[in-house]
Structures are given as C-alpha cells and as structure tokens.
C-alpha cells in the first residue's frame, strides 16, 4: 500500500523538497543498481500477492477443466473468423479471466494474457512477442506470435516463485508433448477437449509449484494460514524475527482506519 504525505511548499520547504528529491533520486539509482536482476517475491509481504496469483491460476485451471466434460467453446464470430476452435476456447478463457479480474474477487484491477507456451511440433519452450504496449502480438488466425527461449530468460524476467510456476507449467506441457510423440496413437491435439486436458495438467503443475513456494515462504515468516484450509488464526510474528526478510511499509491502524472510513462513508 503506497503512502503519500502532503509536503509544505514554502521557500525553505522547497529547498528541503529539492534536497529530498536529490537524495531520493541517488538512493533510488543506488537501489536500482543493487537490485538489478529478477524482481523479488521472498518477503513476508509478498505472501498476499503470491496467494492472489495462486487464486488466479486456480481460476484458470477450473475454467479449462469445464471443457473436459461439458463446456463448449464459443462459435466463430461471423464468416471471416479464421480462428480455430481451440483458439476460440483460449480467447474466451482470457476474456472471462479478465472479467473476473475486474470483478470484486480480482480486486477490480489487473489484466491477464499468455506469458509462455510450449510449441506443438518440437515441444520447445516459447515466449509470446509483445508490442510496444506490452500486449501479445497475434497472427491473422488469432494465434500468438512466438519465439523460442531458454528457461534462463524466464528466470531473468520473473521472481523465483513465479519463474518456477511458469517453468513447471510449461515443463508439464513439454513432458506431455514428448510422451505423446512416443505413442503409437498420439492424442489428437486438434480436439479441444484433449487440448483442455493438456492445459488443465499444465495449470495443475504450475499450481503445485506455486503452493510449494508459498508454503516455504510462509514457514520462513511463521505464517501457517496460507495454502491449506487451516483454521489457524494468522499468527503475529515478533518484529525481531522478521527483520531480515521484511522490508515493506506496514500500514498504521490510523491509515487502515482512514481507508475503512472512506469505504463506510465515515460511519463508525
């Protein structure tokens, strides 16, 4: 939760502000230099974010699971819709996912798109190519423009828990892809139900990896109520045990009170 405080802009105040900005800029540059490399997610304060990520991946698995037995992919949008049934299913999943992210349980923000994939013919790991706005580029038939990558590139881009999740998800696809190639009668991957099965297994693997990361961090932070359906209250960890891993600002009761007051219209 960012904290901003109003600054006085009197003449001496301006000087203080200038000096503060100067110090902050050099401090920020130093920090940036120090923090080059993948982003972090190993602080206790990252647990909430990782759990949100877990809920999102569970939502996606649940969505694809429905195609295994009863859900039908949406039909083509008019005669010039060149997308395959599988592409329509994937596009629909992404649209539904974004609608969920913009609803109450998604916290009303963020949006989703494909982060990685496995190539059908070669079982190679791939990344989508993005435009200047960070959106995935698409071909005319709706498929993503992709390029082959090494896991190291994903590790450089994401924090370890998320890199593990993505590489495990895609690792499951790669394992399944190679196994399928060895079959006398390989599964027909143009069948959307088979495709949904592959996707469901990928999400299951990624979720298993993420749960492991969350459990390890929760243990480090002394927090038991993370991945399981435990009825334990969230324990309060003494500050001296958290110093080495906790760096974020903790909101004060007054700040929480003010935020709650905005939501309740000031009624207490």
């Amino acid at each position, binding site marked *: 939760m960012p904290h901003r405080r109003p600054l006085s802009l009197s003449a001496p105040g301006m000087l203080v502000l200038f000096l503060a900005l100067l110090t902050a800029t050099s401090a920020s540059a130093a920090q940036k230099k120090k923090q080059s490399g993948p982003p972090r997610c190993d602080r206790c304060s990252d647990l909430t974010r990782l759990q949100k990520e877990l809920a*999102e991946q569970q939502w996606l698995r649940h969505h694809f699971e429905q195609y295994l037995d009863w859900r039908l992919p949406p039909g083509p949008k008019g005669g010039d819709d060149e997308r395959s049934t599988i592409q329509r299913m994937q596009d629909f999943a992404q649209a539904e996912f974004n609608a969920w992210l913009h609803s109450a349980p998604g916290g009303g923000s963020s949006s989703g798109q494909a982060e990685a994939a496995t190539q059908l013919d070669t079982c190679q790991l791939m990344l989508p190519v993005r435009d200047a706005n960070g959106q995935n580029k698409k071909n005319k038939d709706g498929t993503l423009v992709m390029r082959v990558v090494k896991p190291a590139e994903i590790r450089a881009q994401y924090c370890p828990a998320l890199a593990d999740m993505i590489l495990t998800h895609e690792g499951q696809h790669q394992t399944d892809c190679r196994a399928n190639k060895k079959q006398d009668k390989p599964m027909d991957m143009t069948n959307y139900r088979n495709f949904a099965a592959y996707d469901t297994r990928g999400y299951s693997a990624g979720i298993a990896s993420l749960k492991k990361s969350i459990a390890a961090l929760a243990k480090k932070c002394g927090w038991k109520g993370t991945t399981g359906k435990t009825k334990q209250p969230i324990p309060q960890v003494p500050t001296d045990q958290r110093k080495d891993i906790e760096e974020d600002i903790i909101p004060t009761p007054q700040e929480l009170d003010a935020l*709650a007051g905005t939501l309740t219209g000031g009624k207490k």
Partner: protein
Amino acid sequence: MGSIAPWLLALALGNTIRAEQEDVDVAAVRQKYAQSCSGGATSEACKQMRWQLEYALYEGMVASMRAGQQPPPSAIKAGLAAEVPELRALALKLQPEEAVKSGAAVAALDSPYATVRQEAVEVLRSRGDEKQRRMLDRQPSTKWPEFPVADTPPDPARLKVKVYPGATYRYLYSGPEQAYFSTADAPDKVVAFYAQGGKKAYSASELQQAMKARAMGAMDQSKMMKIIQEAQAKGQDPTQAIMAWQKSLAGLGTDPTRAFEGRQGIVSPRYIPADDLFSRVVVVFRDDLVGSTAVVVPLPPAGADSATAMPTGDEMMQTVARQQYMGQPIIDSPPPEQ
C-alpha cells in the same frame, strides 16, 4: 536472438495465462472515490474503485496483523460489509462475535462466494444459536472451489421452469445438483402456481408410479416404428431420431424423491413435473430447518441437456484415452533443461 531463437509463427501447445499485477495508487483512488462516489454511487467506475480500496484494505489488514497490530474496529466493520470476498471472509474470521451479533454472519450465508459462505458457516457453527446452526444442516455436500468465484443461479435453459415470483435463490442450499429457492408464501400457494395449466402435483409414491409408466412407454414397439417412419419421411437419420427419443425418455434418470422423503425438516413435499417427459420436477415443501417455503429443482449433470447424440466409437476411445492421460502423475517443480 538471431539464429539461436528465431522468430516463429507457431501453433502453441498450452499457454500459461497469468495476470500482470497492477500497482494501485491507494491515496489517489481514495481521494477520487470520496469525491465522486459518496452517497452509494453505483456506477461501474465507482464499483471498480471500491473493489480496489477494499482489496487494499485486505492487504493492509494482513500486513498489519503480521506485524503484531490488530486491525482497528472500523476496518473490521468495513470488512463485514465488503464486496471483495477475501476481505469479507477475513473480517468474519477475525471478529466472529461481532459478525454474529451484528447479523453479518447470517447475511454472509447468502453471499454468492462459497469462500465467504463457508467462513460464515464456521462462525455460526461455533457461535450461532440453535436456530442458526439448524439452518446449516440443509447445505448439500458439494466440493466448492478454493478460490473466490461468484456462483450464479442456473439460467432458464438449464432450470427449464419459471422461478416463483418473489422467490430468492439461496446459494448456501444450492449446488450443481439442485437449485434451491425460498419464499415466505405458503406451500399451497406455490404448488398452485406450478400446477397452472392442469399440471398435477404428485406425492412421492404417485410420482414414482408415473415415472415407471413413462419408462414402460419406452418399450412400446409401435411408437418406435412410428418415429422411424416419421424420420424417414423427413429424410432424417432414423437411428439418431430413436436415440433422441430414448434420451428424452431418460429424464432425470434417478428418482428425485430420494433427496427429500424422510429428510429432517422437510414437511409434506409435493412434486410437480415441468413437462410430460419429467425432464425437470419442481419440489415444493415447508422447510423447518430454513424456516420458509422451499422450491427446489433437482438438476442433471451440466451438459446433459446439450448432448444431442450418442458418442461415436472414436469419441469413446478419445474419452478413455483422455481419462487415462488425466490420471498420469503431475510434476511440481521445473524439469531439468533438455
């Protein structure tokens, strides 16, 4: 990238979709919300801002608790009335006494989010009065998702019967296998509504007899011949026509009275078929556990209505292969590079 990682136009096999977490400037959203959304403004923009603030409060409460600070009462109060399910469930967990006393726990039983309902169930089981605890016994045994997702009442195509005017869909007592509505009207009045147009309200034994008679109809050779001849006359496939007829006769497949007869709190259930094929049966009874009149529609498995024909041999083989495939072990860490 060059020769090592050439740009490709490729068919992907399974994507990892994930959300880019957006940083929310809570102070700015707070200010905007306070300025433009006071007095319960319900615009889409206000709703989005409210959810962002509620989620920020949830994250803030969790962070402060880990630091050993108890969230202030105002945060709990906002949480108990929250729309964001994570915040509402946390507030129920943190202040169960307050949740019971203020009525927030009972109100949370009607949340569309199973994660909120289950937290309210825990609170009422341990701290609710006898009447409140009895209400919980009507829940069907359903495995709910671990993540917050809003349940929705079945759409008219799946329900296949009109909803009784003014009746409320009860998420807690509904599930994939039944839609449960409640109303303050007397059971006789509800039965009269569903029996309009000469439909019969059956007792359990009468319904079982009627369904048996319908099943006997499936054995009628002359009826079968008539369907074949009609299909041929229309240039249709007679095998498909027979399959469609047999499927329509299958109806619910099981005796719908089993879930209601002799069950605790269910008083004088009556069964009104929605059509001659018994594709749906409305069950009306006084529910002493919930304290109102219940209108329940047992539902077949999702997709059962849309399946038009028997699967082909190839489809059956694919299904078996898929089931075997889904039973294979799953990895839980990245595989070594190959």
